[in-house]
Structures are given as structure tokens and as C-alpha cells.
């Protein structure tokens, strides 16, 4: 990767929100997190594959969808990030919305990382398709495919954009950021053995 002009993934922003040190370990020290060894990650990837193969003509008309695209790779030149979107819904009112499948159970509220993921996806759709995005959806596979809607607010978009510039700053300068210092997060972190 070009160190002066890095392009990050959507998942990097989510990892940064989990703990800013992830960016340092992955990009500055080049130590991968080996998420592919985790069962839930593998199972989630299988679900993503299935979604694109099964019932391809199904369109969610209840939420006003007209057509959809699966597994779309999009990149933003303006904000230097890229990502693959599970599904883009084109709505009746001329707008579009991202739909993300999660191999998880719905726990009555959306995680901050899920919210950011949807916001980043909506930025990508707006930039690449030129359509307005003000809604987004998450489908929780392990809660009987429950569909949850989230509005995209400008204040949240601005927050996520600020996080992207923080991440790019860490990669460009090699700055060692502070941890989140959350015991629950640290016990489940793959870098716990090398983190100070």
C-alpha cells in the first residue's frame, strides 16, 4: 500500500472503533489479526455467500425497494476508503439504501460499529451512484432474519469522516494511539499478548 496515500477498508474503521491500536498493529507493524480462524467469522462469510445465491429475485417491497444489487465493491476517492456492500436497495422514492447481513442476534439496539458500517456504506453509495441515502438496513440472521432500520444523520456522517482522517493519520505517521482500556474488549482481543 502507498504509505502517503493509503486507502483503508470499511472494516478498518470498525476496528478503530473497537480499539485504535488495531490500526497501528495491522498497518504500522503489519501483524494480521487472523480473523479467519474464528468460527463465527467463517460462518458469517458462508451466510454472505448464501444470500447472493438463494432467492436472487426476491425484492423487499415492504420497505419500498424496487431493485437490488449484491456484493458490490465500491471505493471513495474523496475519503480514501473502500468496501464490499452486501446489498444495495434502490427505493421507490429515487433514493438508495445499504442492507447489511449480520450473523448475529439482535440485542435491542445497534452496536456503534454496525451504525458506522452503515454510514460508511451510505457515503459510498452517494458518491458512486449519485443517489441520496437517508435510510439503511441490517438483517440479523440469527434472530430469524429480523430487519432493523436505521436513519442516516448528518452529524453521525461527520463523526465517521473525522475517524477516517484519524486512521489515515495513524497510518501515515506511525503514531501509537491510546487503547480504549475496556477490560471486556481486551479479554477478547487478538493483540492482548503484545499490547502494552
Amino acid at each position, binding site marked *: 500500500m502507498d504509505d502517503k496515500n493509503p486507502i483503508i477498508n470499511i472494516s478498518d474503521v470498525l476496528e478503530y472503533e473497537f480499539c485504535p491500536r488495531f490500526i497501528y498493529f495491522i498497518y504500522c507493524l503489519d501483524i494480521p489479526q487472523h480473523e479467519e480462524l474464528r*468460527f463465527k467469522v467463517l460462518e458469517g462469510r458462508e451466510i454472505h455467500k448464501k444470500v447472493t445465491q438463494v432467492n436472487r429475485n426476491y425484492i423487499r417491497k415492504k420497505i419500498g425497494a424496487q431493485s437490488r444489487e449484491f456484493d458490490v465493491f465500491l471505493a471513495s476517492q474523496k475519503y480514501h476508503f473502500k468496501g464490499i456492500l452486501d446489498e444495495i436497495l434502490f427505493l421507490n422514492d429515487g433514493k438508495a439504501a445499504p442492507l447489511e447481513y449480520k450473523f448475529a442476534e439482535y440485542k435491542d439496539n445497534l452496536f456503534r460499529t454496525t451504525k458506522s458500517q452503515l454510514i460508511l456504506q451510505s457515503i459510498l453509495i452517494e458518491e458512486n451512484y449519485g443517489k441520496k441515502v437517508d435510510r439503511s438496513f441490517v438483517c440479523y440472521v440469527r434472530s430469524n432474519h429480523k430487519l432493523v432500520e436505521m436513519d442516516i444523520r448528518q452529524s453521525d456522517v461527520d463523526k465517521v469522516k473525522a475517524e477516517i482522517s484519524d486512521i489515515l493519520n495513524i497510518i501515515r505517521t506511525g503514531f501509537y494511539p491510546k487503547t480504549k482500556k475496556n477490560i*471486556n474488549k481486551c479479554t477478547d482481543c487478538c493483540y492482548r499478548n503484545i499490547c502494552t
Partner: protein
Amino acid sequence: MTLVWVIYDIVKNKTRSKVVKICKDAGLYRVQKSVFLGDINSNSRDSVILEIESIIDPEADSVYIFPMDKATFEGITLLGQAFDKKYVSDEIITRFF
């Protein structure tokens, strides 16, 4: 972190060995032939449940996964060839034999 018991009765040897491996990989301790116990976080517990669910035969096998709070764990009575309570609850980080 919560203490979790995994107790199973599995017909096929191959499936049983796989369940043993899953429990050991998650950091659980074998306290009896078909009983595992250990202090693991909720994400690991969720992963253990999903992994075991994907390999067992629900018509023939049974697996119980019980969470237990620390206070109840302290009240356990052990007789005979018992496990080391401190070791299982991860109070002893390293053990020298």
C-alpha cells in the same frame, strides 16, 4: 467473563473428539470425561455453542451448556478425585508441577 459448564453425551467417537477439541481450544478445563468447565468471555461461549451445534446430531446427542456465577461456584462441594477450583476459575495463571 463467566464460568461455563459444558456437559455432553455424544454417540459417535469422532463427534465427541471434535467437541473435546472445541472446548479445549476455547480454554475450558476437562474436569471429568464428559464435563468441561472454565472461565470464558461471552463471545467465546457463543462461538462454542455455535461450533458444537454445527457438528452434533440433535436426534442422538445431548450437550448442556450452563453459565454459573462466581458466588455459586464458590459454594460447590467437591468429593473424591476433584478438580482444582482455583485452576479452573483462572485464579492461577501458571502452574508449576
